[in-house]
């Protein structure tokens, strides 16, 4: 816990500003963004740093989110460290390029402020935007508060650029609950962050048509290479396999980077992949992502004081999904409630529910696993509702009777 309290400064920042501050310290070469709603203040704040000459970043205001991510793809392919931010409809417009960034193995970092998708127009928090992008090949980390947003953006560059990973990373923070809410955020000294993230050092690849010569995996005039041309049925599949491997390896890297960052800052987020509370002896537990975990843990603490054995598992890394970890942490729990802030229409439950439930398919001992879909379009999850959920779970643990597998909580009937 070297730096804590000694060198850090404490600032009153909302989640947007916390992200902008992290980007400011990470020595980013290019930030491309479309600074109009549903964009958040992240890039507005960052553009102030650019205007004040506090960073050397090339700031490219483009004409759409599709172009924002495309510009980042170009920059990253040329060897730059690139960042962008978006939310809801903006992410939807980036869709095509999400897959290209991942396929070309470009370590772009993007902050996504989680906001609902139209229709109707909403812009408040839920996870439907990034849940739709879960299969795009991006690493997805979900944060609980603005401090974690700051810390995770810094970690994200290290994860993305790690030679075993080389994948783009989305740092997800809940719209308004985090993005627009003021919190004390501890900011590390510039030099400490600079040293931690280092400079982007492109890996070298052996190029068969250059006689097996090793050249950096970047577009430059010295050693020209082609990225992403046509690969037909005889080769496309093969090009996808390294992405599978990288995603698997990312689990270990996320853990290591969180560990190393903890030595620097004194702040640690569980094991980097999941954050557990009370699971050593919990009979019932709630599994969820993002800011609502704070409320649920607050209620869990109250209930534990009252003698109830309850726990919480917050999933920090949704992609790669920490299957082994989830099974290990929840295997002694009797009833698990997975809370989804998104609907997968027509599916057998919310996206997180499907992951958790299928993770247990091969386990001889499995908890009863229920799904509670909550908080769409920015609807709050107040402590009273979280308490009611825990009490329902305790009741199921006692009686073994499940009334309803998939529940919509907090919606008017």
């Amino acid at each position, binding site marked *: 816990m070297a730096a804590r309290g000694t060198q850090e400064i404490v600032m009153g920042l909302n989640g947007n500003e916390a992200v902008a501050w992290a980007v400011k310290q990470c020595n980013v070469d290019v930030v491309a963004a479309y600074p109009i709603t549903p964009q958040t203040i992240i890039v507005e704040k960052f553009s102030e740093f650019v205007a004040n000459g506090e960073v050397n970043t090339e700031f490219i205001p483009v004409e759409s989110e599709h172009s924002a991510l495309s510009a980042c793809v170009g920059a990253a392919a040329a060897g730059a460290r690139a960042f962008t931010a978006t939310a809801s409809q903006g992410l939807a417009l980036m869709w095509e390029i999400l897959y290209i960034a991942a396929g*070309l193995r470009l370590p772009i970092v993007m902050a996504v402020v989680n906001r609902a998708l139209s229709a109707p127009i909403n812009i408040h928090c839920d996870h439907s935007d990034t849940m739709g992008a879960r299969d795009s090949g991006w690493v997805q980390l979900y944060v609980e508060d603005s401090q974690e947003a700051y810390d995770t953006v810094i970690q994200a560059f290290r994860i993305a650029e790690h030679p075993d990973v080389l994948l783009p990373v989305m740092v997800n923070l809940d719209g308004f609950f985090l993005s627009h809410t003021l919190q004390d955020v501890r900011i590390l000294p510039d030099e400490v962050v600079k040293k931690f993230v280092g400079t982007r050092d492109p*890996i070298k690849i*052996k190029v068969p048509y250059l006689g097996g010569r090793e050249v950096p995996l970047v577009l430059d005039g010295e050693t020209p290479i082609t990225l992403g041309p046509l690969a037909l049925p005889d080769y496309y599949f093969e090009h996808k*396999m*390294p992405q599978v491997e990288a995603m698997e390896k990312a689990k270990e890297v996320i853990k290591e980077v969180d560990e190393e960052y903890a030595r620097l800052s004194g702040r640690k987020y569980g094991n980097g992949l999941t954050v557990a509370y009370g699971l050593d002896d919990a009979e019932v537990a709630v599994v969820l992502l993002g800011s609502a975990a704070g409320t649920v843990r607050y209620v869990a603490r109250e209930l534990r004081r009252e003698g109830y054995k309850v726990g919480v598992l917050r999933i920090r890394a949704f992609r790669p999904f920490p299957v082994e970890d989830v099974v290990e942490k929840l295997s002694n729990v009797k009833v698990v409630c997975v809370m989804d802030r998104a609907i997968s229409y027509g599916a057998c439950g919310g996206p997180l529910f499907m992951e958790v439930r299928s993770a247990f398919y091969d386990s001889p001992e499995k908890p009863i696993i229920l799904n509670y879909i909550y908080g769409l379009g920015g609807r709050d999850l107040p402590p009273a509702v979280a308490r009611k959920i825990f009490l329902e779970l305790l009741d199921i643990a006692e009686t073994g009777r499940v009334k309803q597998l998939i529940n919509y909580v907090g919606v008017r009937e």
Partner: protein
Amino acid sequence: MSELKSWRALPLGTVPLKFSTEFKTGDWRTFKPVINQEKCVKCLLCWIYCPEMSIVWDGEKVSVNYDFCKGCGICACECPVKAISMVPER
């Protein structure tokens, strides 16, 4: 056809295995451009317009690189003296 490689043998980042010049795309052609050197005035408009860089200028005359010419006919269309005719491939 060369032996298909394992995914582990591919360079990372979708970098291709071969130069594009090794993929001879001339066999996509149904019509081939034939240049009448008698008529040609060496204006090089065909050389400028060919989208495949398949018109070759050696300093004295123009010719066609049939390994990559796709037979689109743009050269024939652009030639101001109609020196290029499109002949069906057999």
